[in-house]
Structures are given as structure tokens and as C-alpha cells.
């Protein structure tokens, strides 16, 4: 297809060009240039969405170089949904950052953001395993850079930890991919799936890839790098990291798991993943309950939420196609809801910290009176995270519950419900602090209205998702490699 007509190349070229451009032009021009870029991104996403829904999955080879050496891209329903998600959330975070950061900081923020965005889009659209690797690495660099952006000790330490963990993960992934290539002689996802056979090499490769991706996704017990990184970064960065970056490695894991039908051949591994997810839900929730700093609560909440997404793996069982479909839908919906809710929550939390000037929970006293709108935004995001209706989070949990019933794996039901209570506990713990009325009169800073509105918008998005869940679910049900590989 013609490059001009297809939005797929634009989705890669614009961010990359943006990254380069914003590095070069003077400070004052960087923001306007980025705003233009953001809008083109959004437009490209919408066009892609239109094309995919109307004409089916789209394929594109960069500069007409075909695989294996070229960069092959494909956009099925799942990828398109993720493109839309990342465009919306990243634009929101970008606008937030624009209002939040000083000119100096902003100027350095834009290139990193554009790199991040480019690598995300690359991952969503990649059709071969090596492109995924490149995307992952680029993502890591951009993300580490963004974490270190706060340039204080804590964030620096967090970024180093993050870097090491990510590098280890990427390397494991790369090794796995290499082994796969060795065994099957191809890098393309589709060809791999077609010629897949369970030899020892493949098993080692899958183990390596799995390990690497789990580390990068911060699945319990490999999550230790995440809370300091997400909690210590600047607010818009935290939002981006929690909402989007961890999703990238999860997305790859998901594609591997389903497209290569790993679930079918390694059911015990599925249960192990589920157990890790359960551990994440309980441990993450428990740790979130024990934090004294607001952003750390939110960061640990991410650990727990990743657990929910991981719970979809044991529910993808070959025996019951219905249960598998529900689990798949539930997992994706959880991912989407989490992206919006967590971004909204981080931004709202950032606003609160901006008001009080202190990062701890105790100083939130009286905030619900002073910043009701912001607390409301925080609360709405919390509703989705707690899995209370009406919200995307609730619908996702509902689907996972149904899937557990269908496949007869009742133990995940217990985990899901316990997790619900735990997340309610930590969200409302924050709430209780904001309702406290202490006698000391503090001076609060007043955040810009736009900051609050962006946070509210994202949170409302996660709630709204509860009413329009059918739409993303239809989207991922469009024919594509994942749908074909499902039982």
C-alpha cells in the first residue's frame, strides 16, 4: 500500500522525526512542534482504526523491504486498539507534562517522549520478533531516561535499577529469539507460528523469553525495580511508565503465548503464571497498604494490577474456547482500564503532591475539601482499580470471574475477590487521609485547572470504559493472528 495513504508508517515516522526534531530546534519551538505531532498521531490512530475496522487487518513493509531483512508491520484489531490506547494516554500525559514542567525541563522531555512513543508504536505494530526486541530496547532507553529525568538521588537510583533489570530482560529475550531463529529459521511471528514445533530448543527459548518479559513487565516476584522507578519519577513520567511502558512487554508476552499456542502445550506453566499473578495481587496490594508515600501506593498498585492481567494466562485453556475467549477479553479490558485509570491516578496524585508540597500521605489532610475535583478524579480511577462497578476494571474482573467459572478454576475467583478487597483497602486508605481535618492551617499551592482536568479526563475514561466495553471487545475480536490461535 502507498505510504501516503496508509497511516502505519506515519505512526512510526512522526514520533521518530519528532524525537529528532525536538532535539534540534530551539526550546521555544519544541512544544508547538510536539503539539502538532501529537495531533497527527491521534489522527493517524483514528485513520488506522477506521481502516482496520472496515477493511480488516493491515500489513505494511517499510520502504517495501520485505521480511526478513525489512521491517514488516501489521495492524490487527489488537494492535489497533493498543495504538489508540497509547495515543490517547500518551497525548494526555504529554499535555499534562506541558503544563506541569518548566520550559527547560519540557524541552528535554519532548525528545524522550517521542522516542518512547515511537518504540511503543513499533512494538504494537511489529510483525517479527526482532523488531520487537529493538522496540523493547528503545523503550527501555527512553523510559530510563525519563525516570532519571527528575535528577534527584532517588530517581537516579531507581533508573539504574530499572536499567539493569531491563537490560537483563532484553538480553534474555534476545537470546530466546536467537534460539527460536536457530530452531526454525525465521523471525516473523506468522511463520514461527506456522512452523512451530516443540523441540528442546524451543522450550529453552520460550523459557528465556518468558523470563525476560516477566522481568520487564515486573511480574511478582520480579517486580522490585518497579515501585521506586514509577514512584520516584516525575508525575507525567510515572503515568506514562505505569500506563503504557509495562504494557509493551506484556503485549509481547501475550502475543507469544497465544500465537504460538504455548497455553495449549504447557498448562502447568500457565498455572505457574497464574500463581505469580495471584502473588502479585496479594503482595502488591499488601505493600500498597503499607506505604507512607502517595506515589508509592500508586506504584505498588501497579504491581498488583499486573497480577490481574497475568491471571488471564491460566484461564486460557484449550478445553474451553468460551472460557478462553472470556479470559482474553477480560485480560485486554483489564489492561486498557488500567492504562487509563493508572494514568489518571498518577496524575491526580501528582497534583495532590504539588498542592501539599510533600509526598507523604499524612500531609493530605483536608485535601478533599481543598481540591474536591482532584480527589474525585483520584476516586474515579480508584473505582476502576478496585474493580467496582461501573468501570472498565469491573467489567474486566467480571469477565475474568466468568472465565474462572467456565473453566472450573474456582481458586482464581478467590484471588480476584480478595484482590478486590485489598485494592479497596489501599485506595480508601488514601481517601481517609484526604478527609481528615487537622487543625494546622497549611498553605497549599494551587495546581493549574488543566492539570486537574486532564487527570479527571483519564479517570472518567476508565469509568466510561465500563459502559462501552463492547466496543474494544469487538475490536479485538476482528480476525487476526491472535483470534485465529485462540481455541
Amino acid at each position, binding site marked *: 500500500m502507498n505510504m501516503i495513504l496508509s497511516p502505519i508508517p506515519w505512526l512510526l515516522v512522526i514520533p521518530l522525526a519528532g524525537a529528532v526534531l525536538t532535539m534540534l530546534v530551539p526550546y521555544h519551538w519544541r512544544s508547538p512542534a510536539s503539539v502538532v505531532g501529537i495531533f497527527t498521531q491521534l489522527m493517524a490512530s483514528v485513520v488506522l482504526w477506521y481502516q482496520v475496522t472496515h477493511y480488516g487487518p493491515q500489513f505494511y513493509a517499510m520502504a517495501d523491504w520485505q521480511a*526478513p*531483512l525489512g521491517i514488516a508491520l501489521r495492524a490487527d484489531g489488537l494492535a489497533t486498539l493498543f495504538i489508540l490506547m497509547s495515543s490517547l494516554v500518551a497525548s494526555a500525559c504529554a499535555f499534562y507534562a506541558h503544563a506541569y514542567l518548566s520550559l527547560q525541563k519540557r524541552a528535554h522531555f519532548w525528545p524522550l517522549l517521542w522516542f518512547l512513543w515511537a518504540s511503543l508504536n513499533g512494538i504494537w505494530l511489529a510483525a517479527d520478533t*526482532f523488531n520487537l*526486541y*529493538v522496540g523493547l*530496547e528503545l523503550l*527501555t*532507553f527512553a523510559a*530510563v*531516561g525519563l525516570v*532519571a529525568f527528575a535528577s534527584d*538521588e532517588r530517581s*537516579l*537510583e531507581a*533508573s*539504574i*535499577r530499572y*536499567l*539493569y533489570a531491563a*537490560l*537483563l530482560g532484553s*538480553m534474555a529475550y*534476545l*537470546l530466546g529469539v*536467537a*534460539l527460536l*531463529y*536457530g530452531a526454525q529459521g525465521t*523471525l516473523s511471528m506468522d511463520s514461527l507460528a506456522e512452523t512451530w514445533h516443540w523441540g528442546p530448543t524451543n522450550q529453552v527459548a520460550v523459557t528465556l523469553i518468558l523470563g525476560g518479559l516477566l522481568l520487564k513487565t515486573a511480574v511478582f516476584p520480579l517486580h*522490585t*525495580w518497579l*515501585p*521506586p522507578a514509577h514512584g520516584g519519577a516525575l508525575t507525567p513520567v510515572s503515568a506514562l511508565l505505569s500506563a503504557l511502558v509495562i504494557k509493551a512487554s506484556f503485549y509481547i508476552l501475550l502475543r507469544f503465548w497465544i500465537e504460538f499456542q504455548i497455553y495449549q502445550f504447557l498448562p502447568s506453566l500457565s498455572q505457574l503464571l497464574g500463581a505469580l499473578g495471584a502473588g502479585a495481587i496479594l503482595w502488591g496490594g499488601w505493600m500498597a497498604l503499607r506505604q507512607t508515600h502517595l506515589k508509592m501506593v500508586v506504584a505498588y498498585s501497579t504491581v498488583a494490577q499486573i497480577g490481574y492481567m497475568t491471571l488471564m494466562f491460566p484461564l486460557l485453556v484449550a478445553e474451553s474456547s468460551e472460557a478462553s475467549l472470556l479470559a482474553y477479553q477480560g485480560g485486554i479490558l483489564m489492561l486498557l482500564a488500567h492504562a487509563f485509570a493508572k494514568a489518571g491516578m498518577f496524575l491526580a496524585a501528582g497534583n495532590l503532591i504539588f498542592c501539599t508540597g510533600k509526598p507523604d500521605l499524612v500531609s493530605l489532610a483536608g485535601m478533599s475539601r481543598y481540591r474536591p475535583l482532584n480527589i474525585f478524579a483520584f476516586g474515579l480511577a480508584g473505582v476502576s482499580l478496585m474493580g467496582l462497578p461501573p468501570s472498565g476494571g469491573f467489567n474486566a474482573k467480571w469477565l475474568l470471574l466468568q472465565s474462572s467459572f467456565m473453566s472450573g478454576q474456582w481458586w482464581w475467583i478467590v484471588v480476584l475477590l480478595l484482590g478486590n478487597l485489598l485494592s479497596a483497602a489501599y485506595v480508601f486508605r488514601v481517601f481517609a487521609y484526604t478527609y481528615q481535618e487537622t487543625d494546622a492551617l497549611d498553605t497549599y499551592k494551587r495546581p493549574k485547572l488543566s492539570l486537574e482536568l486532564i487527570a479527571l479526563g483519564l479517570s472518567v475514561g476508565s469509568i466510561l470504559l465500563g459502559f462501552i466495553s463492547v466496543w474494544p471487545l469487538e475490536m479485538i475480536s476482528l480476525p487476526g493472528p491472535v483470534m485465529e490461535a485462540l481455541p
Partner: protein
Amino acid sequence: MDTNLIFTLCGVGLCGIGFFGFIYHRHLLRRLIAFNLIGNGTFLIMVGFAQRGQGVTDHVIQALVLTGIVVAVAATALGLVLIRRWFQLKGSTQLPEDDAS
């Protein structure tokens, strides 16, 4: 024993040593070097695969290794920058042990 296997074994050995170093050491630079060792091991394995054909090397693998090396270099550079900054700030070459996380 063909060359393919030698490459692979060496690669695996390098990876093992690197992995050990990565886990064992606290010094940030050592860990970075350990990471590079893992990387090199991986590339070695891949290059080994490339030799598998009858004297015909697989260009795809070579391209991949090349890209991988570039990426690894970039990663090392980023790591170095961060470590230097850390050293400037804290005067320390290792991260504080954090029991909580």
C-alpha cells in the same frame, strides 16, 4: 564437534559468567561489564547459528547481531552516564541495599 557447537558453548559459557557477575557484583561498573558479557555471549550464540549453513552465512543473523551490538553499545553508554552521575551525587559506586523492595 562442529564450529557451530563451539560457538554455542562459548556463548553459553559467556552468558553464564556474565549472569553470575550480574547477580553477584554490587559495583555498578562491574555489573555493566557483566551485562556486556551476557550480550557478547548471546551474539556469539547467534553467530554460531549463522554458521550452520554449508559455508553460506545467514545475512539475517549478521544483520541482527550488528543491530544488537549497536543497541548494547547504546545501553552501555546510557548506563555509564547514569553511573557517573550517581557517583557525582553520592560518591558511591554501588546502590544502597534496599531491603524494603
